[in-house]
């Protein structure tokens, strides 16, 4: 038997660096001297002692992603620490060796860490760790399909039988290390006859170390490792448990990394899960006994040890001797819900494109259905056939037409498994915004989500099925809308959706929401015997019409509306409202009056309505000092 373990020290830091290197390249800002700060925190742009990024990186330009590992390696010389925790009490979660040398300690508060200005601080991003871990799994997968994703930054590989392919054990180990290095992660690698011996040997060896343990020499090779490694490893596993099973549920993925690719971490130290505190107790007891390394632990009498530390203590002793043989927990690659089709001849009509899309969608949804999953987000990527002369001086709008890819993302209000509805929505979407060139490749990806089973209340009014409603709205959207504002009106509200009265003192404040507002069950109030507020019907003018108002002793006296000046007979007011004083653009302050006017014969209003008196609601906007008619009382 032969097992290899790849362990990435300071994994969160390396993961952050790897992703930063990718972003750095992707953004093509290699010519800049400092890296933009992706996290919060002052003075945290990367700096070296000379405060400049190595000229080698600067000269790279927008190079290929192969250079990521090179850049990542260059970044490693900076002092970097990763913060984690609630925003108001972030603490140092991990740091690299240069930062450690500068005085950073795990558990320091952010304020303490900021006292060391040379250290760049990064906020922990779980997705970065997923990406880095996926990269690690991928490189391990090149050696053997039998993998165990032990915990973030640690992978154990069953290498049995690969010696013939790769040469000696040492060579295998070196190849593993180099492979990790190529994917941008510097790792410790150990090979041994059992998984745990390889694991602890990798954990315990120095940076980028390669350790080969010959059969029968396990106990001797592990002898000098500190017993505190048990704590470290159990903490990692314990943490994996929390992290992969709770905080990254199916459906919340990013960067194409699927949570399903990591099995929920289980404690594989011979005990059931949740034993992290016990390990800490045992390590504490051992350190109290003066047992600092595996060698001393191995030397303790086993029966006496079991009497004191139980079976788990004995298990740890066997681990220290390198005697534990176990099976790997196999790593199963998750299927990605993505399908693509390259076309022999480009399509330039929507109808044939629809056939392709429909086919791909059906295949993906079958996969989802088989896994009892649904989707609430579909992404369609189209590769386009562009013929252009690059020398042309193009305007911005023109150059957008030369983009070789075209992407549409469809978000659904509720997860669904219905391919037909999704297809119809996509079709409507593409009809509204068709690609600007013939399509040569179609890719469709569905983001999985759990199926929602909902039952409406017995007494709730029947509402249309959400997916069907979405379809209707999409149809409406493709009909209404104009060229200037698109799907919005001049006040920035959607044209199609659900009208909602806003909770505001501002008169007539409404919004249009694209999703259905959550229905609230209203408290039933006993019917009031008599409302004290008399109600009057008013025809509201939207938008309000501007008028000229003449004042007498600060009270409206005349009104010029519709080209006719009228005397005000009676007034009531003022009624004042104001608000949003904290936001200069939103602040309002207005003074309303109800005014009764008498029209002269021949006025358009008289001709239409047939009477000579009318009551208006007018208001003065204090900011602009203009008057408007808000409505006319019926």
């Amino acid at each position, binding site marked *: 038997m032969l097992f290899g373990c790849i362990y990435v020290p300071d994994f969160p830091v390396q993961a952050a660096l790897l992703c930063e290197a990718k972003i750095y390249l992707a953004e093509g800002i290699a010519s800049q001297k400092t890296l933009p700060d992706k996290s919060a925190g002052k003075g945290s742009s990367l700096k070296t002692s000379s405060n400049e990024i190595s000229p080698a990186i600067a000269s790279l330009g927008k190079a290929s992603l192969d250079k990521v590992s090179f850049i990542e390696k260059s970044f490693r010389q900076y002092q970097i620490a990763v913060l984690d925790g609630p925003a108001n009490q972030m603490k140092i979660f991990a740091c690299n060796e240069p930062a450690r040398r500068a005085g950073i300690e795990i558990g320091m508060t952010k304020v*303490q860490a900021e006292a*060391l200005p040379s250290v760049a601080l990064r906020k922990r991003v779980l997705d970065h760790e997923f990406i880095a871990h996926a990269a690690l799994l991928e490189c391990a997968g090149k050696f053997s399909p039998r993998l165990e994703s032990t915990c973030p930054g640690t992978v154990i590989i069953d290498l049995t039988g690969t010696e013939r392919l790769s040469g000696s054990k040492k060579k295998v180990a070196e190849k593993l290390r180099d492979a990790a290095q190529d994917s941008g992660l510097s790792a410790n690698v150990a090979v041994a006859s059992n998984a745990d011996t390889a694991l602890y040997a990798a954990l315990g060896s120095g940076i980028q170390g390669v350790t080969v343990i010959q059969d029968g020499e396990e106990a001797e090779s592990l002898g000098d490792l500190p017993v505190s490694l048990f704590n470290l490893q159990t903490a990692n596993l314990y943490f994996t448990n929390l992290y992969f099973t709770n905080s990254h549920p199916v459906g919340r993925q990013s960067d194409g990394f699927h949570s399903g690719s990591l099995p929920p971490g289980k404690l594989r130290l011979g005990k059931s899960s949740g034993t992290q505190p016990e390990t800490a107790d045992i390590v504490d*007891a051992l350190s109290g006994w003066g047992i600092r390394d595996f060698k001393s632990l191995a030397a303790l009498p086993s029966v006496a040890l079991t*009497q004191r530390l139980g079976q788990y203590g004995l298990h740890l002793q066997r681990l220290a001797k390198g005697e534990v043989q176990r099976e790997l927990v196999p790593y199963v690659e998750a299927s990605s819900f993505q399908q693509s089709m390259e076309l022999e001849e480009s399509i330039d009509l929507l109808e044939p494109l629809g056939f392709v899309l429909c086919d791909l969608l059906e295949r993906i949804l079958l996969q989802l259905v088989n896994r009892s999953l649904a989707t609430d987000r579909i992404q369609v990527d189209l590769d386009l056939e562009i013929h252009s002369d690059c020398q042309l001086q193009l305007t911005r709008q023109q150059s957008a037409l030369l983009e070789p890819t075209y992407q549409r993302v469809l978000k659904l209000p509720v997860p669904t498994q219905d391919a037909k509805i999704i297809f119809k929505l996509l079709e409507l979407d593409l009809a509204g915004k068709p690609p600007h060139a013939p399509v040569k490749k179609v890719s469709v990806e569905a983001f999985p989500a759990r199926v929602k089973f909902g039952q409406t209340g017995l007494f709730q009014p029947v509402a249309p099925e959400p997916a069907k409603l979405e379809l209707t709205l999409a149809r409406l959207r493709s009909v209404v809308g104009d060229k200037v504002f698109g799907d919005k009106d001049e006040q920035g509200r959607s044209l199609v959706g659900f009208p909602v009265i806003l909770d505001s003192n501002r008169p007539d404040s409404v919004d249009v929401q694209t999703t259905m507002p959550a229905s609230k069950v209203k408290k039933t109030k006993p019917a009031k015997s*008599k409302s004290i507020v008399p109600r009057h019907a008013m025809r509201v003018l939207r938008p309000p019409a501007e008028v000229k108002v003449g004042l007498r002793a600060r009270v409206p006296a005349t009104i010029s509306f519709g080209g006719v000046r009228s005397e005000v007979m009676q007034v009531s007011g003022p009624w*004042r*409202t104001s608000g949003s004083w*904290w936001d200069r653009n939103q602040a309002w302050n207005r003074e309303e009056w109800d005014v009764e006017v008498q029209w002269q014969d021949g006025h358009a209003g008289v001709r239409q309505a047939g009477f000579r008196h009318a009551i208006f609601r007018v208001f003065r906007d204090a900011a602009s000092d203009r008057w408007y008619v808000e409505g006319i009382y019926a």
Partner: protein
Amino acid sequence: MTKYAELHARSAFTFLEGGSLPEALIAGAAESGISAMALLDRNGFYGSPRFHMSARKLSLHAHVGTELVVEDELGLSNYPLLCESQAGYQNLCRLLTKTKLRVPKHTRSSARIEELAQHAHGLVCLTGDEQGPLARALEEGGIEAARKLLHKQVTIFGRDNVYVELQRHLERKQEVRNRISVDLAREFKLPLLATNGVCYASMADREILDVFTCIRNKRELATAGKLLCRNAERFIRTPQQMARLFCDLPEAISNTHELSQRLDFSLERLGYEFPRYPVPDGGSQIEFLRAQARKGASDRYGPGNEKARKQIERELDLIEKLELSGYFLIVWDIVRFCRDNGILVQGRGSAANSAVCYALGITAVDAVGMELLFERFLSEERGEWPDIDLDLPSGDEREKAIQYIYKRYGQLGAAMTANVCTYRGRSAAREVGKVFGFDTETTERLSGLVGSWEWRGPEDTFDRHFSKAGLDLTEWRIAKYLDLCVRLQDLPRHLSQHSGGMVICQGSLDSVVPLEPATMPGRVVVQWDKDDCADLGIIKVDLLGLGMMAVLKDSIELIRDHYDEEVDLAHLPADAQDVYGPIRKADTIGMFQVESRAQMASLPRNNPEKFYDLVTQVALIRPGPITGQMTSPYLRRRQGKEPVTYPHPSLEPVLKRTLGVPLFQEQLLRMAMICANFTGGEAEELRRALGHKRSERKMKEIESKLRAGMTQNEIKPESQDSIVQFITSFALYGFPESHSASFALIAYASAFLKVRYLGAFTAAILNNQPMGFYSPATLVKDAQRHGLKVRPIDVTCSIWDCTLEGKGHAVSLRMGLRYVRGLQHAAGEAMVKARGERAFSSTEDLTRRVPQLSRANLAMLARIGALNFISGEAQLHRRDALWQIEKAARNVGPLLLDVVEPDETSPLNRMNTEERLVADFHGTGMTVGPHPMAYRREELRKVGISSASELRRIRHGKSAVVAGCVITRQRPGTAKGLIFITLEDETGNANVIVMPDLYSKDPMVVLRERFIKVRGKVQNVDGIVHLMAEKVMPLEVTSAETWSHDFH
């Protein structure tokens, strides 16, 4: 001219529902030409005293009332009630107390309508605003319900005492309600009353109210919607504006004036009376007091002291004249209770100026011997109650004294004073940030930036913090945020309980001020803080907890048991030079008030030889004298390096005792009286402004008054400047002389006990931690250097507390189980009890007989060596004990129960020195063995590192390197950013000063390293040795968790 009184206003004391302080409302009223105003805060009179006091200054009428939350059949509504007479006020106080006390703290209370009916006499009821009963009735049940309500109100209060209230905030719905209200008023023949329902002084303060609304509802401004104000009309309008607004209903305006005339009650006539002392055989209080004082005087002064007798008679005459005998007897009664129950008590504050207090045993300072100024305590002219503070041992004993007062005067006869918590820089920045919807991180960054260190730089302002946090002040939202942070300063947030102030009343206190429950069971709190109580002439006794009092008490008991000697703190040998010796050498670790770094640095220069020198020493190192630059001149004069001069010849009698430099508050008052012709009353006002948190504006007023007086007395401008400088710098805190004397007495007692009975003192101080300036480890090391033998914790003889072993002056100290980390008191006591029955024979025996000890406890005991002697003769080593404990504490199950272990001895190695140090510090926070530095001494000496004792012998200006364990780090507000570090080694302590620029070079070493070595120049002046650091380096000594007392 329109006469209008604003009879419905709410201040910020309706917590989070009002936007201005009572003072601001009064100022606004005065500005608007309103002659009377009523403050109706919700369910209480929280702001009334401040409202009353500021109205009195501006000659306005301040009416008293409240918005009482009442529950009737329609639910809860706020009844605005005004107090017409004293009876009405007392009724309302009792009703409020009743409603408050039946629900726990922080729960909104409400009265039932029947209760209101019972307490309605003397009250005038308004129908209220939109939260009032009439609006509520109209909303819930229409006009019929409103009719029913008015009928009920008329029945409860009488037709003359119900007013239909009209408010016009330019809202449609309100006007509809007003029309109906007017009709109903005509129908019921009730008078109309216009109010503006004031919630803030000026229109702009509506923003504060909106912010408060959001804080109250835990919302952001952007999402608060209709919870916010509709407009900004609830400010103080002028009578003309009100008349215009109600031009259609002029009687509503004129009625306000009429009602204001009717409201006869003001807080002037509170009806407070201090309780009378029940004299045993029916005699008069003063006769009884005279008898007690004379009896006490003959005990304290002896029979022949004519001077003391005269002084006491003089004081007693004044006490009789001012009718204060009851007060003295009651304080005497509390002190007597404490004495009888073995609770150590000492009066301080200005009471220490009184010979009667000394004779009665209330204070321990001999006012006659020290020639203290009696007028500072009691003066006929001031017409104010004297102030007696009692120091008690902190903890249970103080609580006993407090409960005694409750018991004696009844639950409703005594209460604690409140403490008004206000919005300060950090809390304002945090709360307003949340309301503005800033993300948590920005908010935390902002609030964290505001004054996180004690030292405040010259540019430590809000603006600067904002720019530092990367916020653009030219942006509207940010500018608004900053503006509101500043405007929120000093507005009340909530009430808490004052640490020790108690008010007592003849009859029932609940008819003087409403009482509320405190969080602590068995306690009630009044709605006013101590300044409000003082303003309204309510007398209070301060019962303050002092850790050192508990130490003194415990020491006396230990001395009694182990030295067979009785120490009476009242009769300590005066001016014992063996006690002053160590004080002069600044060897004062553990001594009360003189142990801090700054105190130690001035002790050799002040060179105290007698008690009065200690009194000045205690007052010397206070922010007042330090920032007023009085400390250095005084010390130079004391050393004879500078002539004694006076700012003005007329001040010589006042300043002679302190060599021409004012150190005490009394001296400043006398200076003001002599130079600027202040009357006693004005001087008293000055004193209160000095010790007052609301002092800045007051100080300005006083300064101009001082200058005017001095100009009148033809004092030169330069002298004026220095006198004003002396007086204003005390605003930052200075001690009164009597207070200083009381503290000096405790300081002397602690020094006396430490010098003469080191074992008892050390045990007592270790049993009363945390207190003082140094950690237990430092206290133990200091005691060891002074020759005390300290023995480690041992389960065969330690009890919970640290105690003494042996008799007489050969005692040694045995560390107590309280120092075992993680050991519960109950488990410790159970072990001591089990051991009392029969000694433990083995770890197995211990584990079986004391099941309260957890495996972790046993392991900890083994690690610190407390089990080494458990098997009697055959001494275990710590690892043996650990090995055995692990087995004994674990239930092995039936299978292995009978397995005989092949090897009985443990396979583990003994702990080495480092391991023992780590275990000691981890398990007990200290070591009783050699200091960690002692193990490294040889090596350090070879590389030229001096020990603390050697440093003292190095000449001034020479370079030196010292190393040690950091025991304190300080950055006092008065020291311009300097950092003071104290290093400890086996020979003593070395003092290091780090300049701000050196600190900024390598902050982590200065802030975090536990052991450091420092190279620098020695400053050896007048016996005070400092090392001015040039380089600070980390030093590897041990990984033991030593502990440093930082930035306190």
